[in-house]
């Protein structure tokens, strides 16, 4: 983990050179480029979906196709039980799945970074209490906690987002705290202190820039986890019932008997879509991690 800060500090014009070196190494990693390609493609698809999909195509009432028809020329992925095209649902489902994943990650990072920085910078009782709370949250089974929170908050995307953020911030907090401790042990922090830097100056101008690359890497990996959690919670019936998302598609496939009738074309695509997106984020995150931390490479 110290390698992150070494890479950022050692070069002559520090940050820019580090960024340039990072992008060069990133482009040279095939898996990273593949992951980035996947993510770019899916983001474009999600943003462009309203251009070629009319909301009426998603409505159960207006559906024209036969119920649970296998793939055909008109509907390349077949239809669901109310006759909507599975392909249309699949493309539209990208939007809530990505949105919840990204927003929940943003909250996770905010909470995790704030408490990690605070716990690492302020030692003593306050810092230890903060870490104890974090440890306690890590030990707790995530899904039952998320289910309970989301159930009490009511169905919908907001409660799913909150539930994911509440259950996933402790991991980030622990990571950021460890990195904060490592950075604060370095001589330039002592120098800054000797020059009279206050807590705020130290945390935001000295520590945060050195922790930032780690935050970025960790958030890529967190998005993958958040998307998985979001689809799981939606599958369990905690999502907005009128929304079309990958989790709700699988939920309906199981609930309305598509599974028992062997309608694989309705079950297979949303799962593969989840897998591809999670794979994209994981590839990018792992590659960035490897570039920033050369020690990891040897272990893999």
């Amino acid at each position: 983990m110290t390698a992150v800060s070494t890479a950022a500090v050692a070069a002559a014009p520090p940050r820019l050179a580090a960024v340039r070196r990072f992008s060069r190494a990133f482009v040279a990693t095939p898996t990273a480029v593949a992951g980035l390609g996947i993510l770019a493609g899916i983001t474009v698809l999600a943003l462009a979906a309203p251009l070629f999909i009319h909301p009426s195509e998603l409505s159960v009432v207006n559906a024209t196709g036969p119920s649970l028809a296998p793939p055909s020329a008109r509907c390349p992925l077949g239809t669901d039980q109310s006759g909507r095209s599975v392909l249309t649902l699949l493309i539209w489902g990208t939007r809530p799945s990505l949105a919840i994943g990204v927003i929940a990650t943003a909250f996770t990072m905010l909470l995790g970074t704030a408490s990690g920085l605070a716990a690492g910078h302020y030692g003593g009782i306050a810092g230890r209490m903060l870490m104890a709370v974090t440890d306690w949250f890590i030990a707790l089974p995530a899904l039952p906690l998320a289910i309970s929170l989301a159930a009490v908050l009511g169905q919908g995307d907001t409660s799913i987002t909150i539930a994911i953020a509440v259950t996933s911030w402790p991991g980030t907090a622990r990571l950021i705290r460890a990195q904060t401790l490592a950075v604060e042990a370095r001589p330039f922090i002592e120098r800054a202190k000797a020059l009279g830097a206050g807590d705020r100056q130290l945390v935001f101008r000295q520590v945060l820039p050195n922790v930032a690359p780690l935050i970025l890497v960790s958030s890529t990996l967190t998005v993958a986890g958040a998307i998985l959690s979001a689809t799981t919670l939606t599958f369990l019936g905690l999502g907005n019932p009128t929304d079309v998302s990958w989790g709700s598609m699988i939920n309906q496939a199981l609930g309305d008997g598509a599974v028992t009738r062997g309608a694989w074309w309705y079950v297979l695509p949303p799962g593969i879509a989840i897998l591809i997106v999670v794979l994209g984020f994981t590839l990018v995150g792992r590659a960035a991690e490897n570039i920033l931390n050369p020690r990891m490479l040897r272990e893999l």
Partner: protein
Amino acid sequence: MAAAAPLPARGRNAPESARSPGQDSGRRDFLHYLIRKLAAAVISFTVLLVVGFIIFSLMPSDPVAALTRGRPTSARQMAFLVKQLGLNQPVWERFGRFVADTLQGQLGYSWQFQTSVASLIAQRLWPTLLLMGSATVVSVVLGIWLGIRSGWRPGSLIDRTSTGVAVTLWSVPTFWLGIILLVLFSGGFGPIPPLFPAGGMSTPGTAGGLNPAHILDVIRHLVLPCLTLVLVIFAQYQMIMRSSVIDELGSPYLVTARAKGLRDAEVRRRHAVPNALLPSVTVIFLQVGTMISGAIVVETVYSWPGLGYLTYQALQIPDLPLLEGTFIIFSASVIVFNLLADLLYRYLDPRVRRQ
């Protein structure tokens, strides 16, 4: 708070034990250790009660409205319910009563089943234990075996294949994997005949009890849910075993073992593996949280009548007392297993004892 409590204690005890190493101080050290870990577990449980109380008693804006939803209720009945649920009392009193009730095993009454939550949980506990137990055994054996194979020759074909498969399965959504297995093996898909039942724990209408036919029936129902859990979870054990075998690879004692002329398989089985097993063994206990999350989803897919499916059923209403009960049971069992992992690790690894 769980970790904060033991810290000062460790600082006080460490020099003392370093001064007088011996049988007696070893036992005293263990007692200290045990008390510290027990105290940490008790604090964790207290925090769990606080969180449970906040989520289920303070966060719902109007429990009476939720309780009487869809039913005609007069204002007097509402007032009676408020009084009966104790909602007009101060928060501290309500918390005190909640703690007392929980410690006595009174987890309230389920809204949809109209029985006590505790009896529901007791009823559904065994199916979950059967599912999680069998899945743990299979995935530990499979994961450790694959981990040894791939860690002993890192970069070999078996390493790359098994690591790739394990990581892919690890990132597959559990519920989707379950459904795919369900479509493939229970409905009769293409050339595959319907091999296993689609859900439940036994065929309806058959006699229960311990007769062989019933046991066979339960096993047939168990195969698919157990397989799903195993496929998702064995990656953990495989990765941990692999990396701890790799850690041992360069050790001098392996060179010694080879210099003695032992065959490669013997060096692996009798020297490397016993040393590398340690982390995997404790991880079994630390994985209970992951197992619970997996069980909730898998039981939902296969309508396996355990605690996970009970959680799902509670979620559909939502039946808050029932959800609260399962939340407390799940979290409490994680706390207990973490404690067991700590104690077991100390028992298995003499190095931890000496520190």
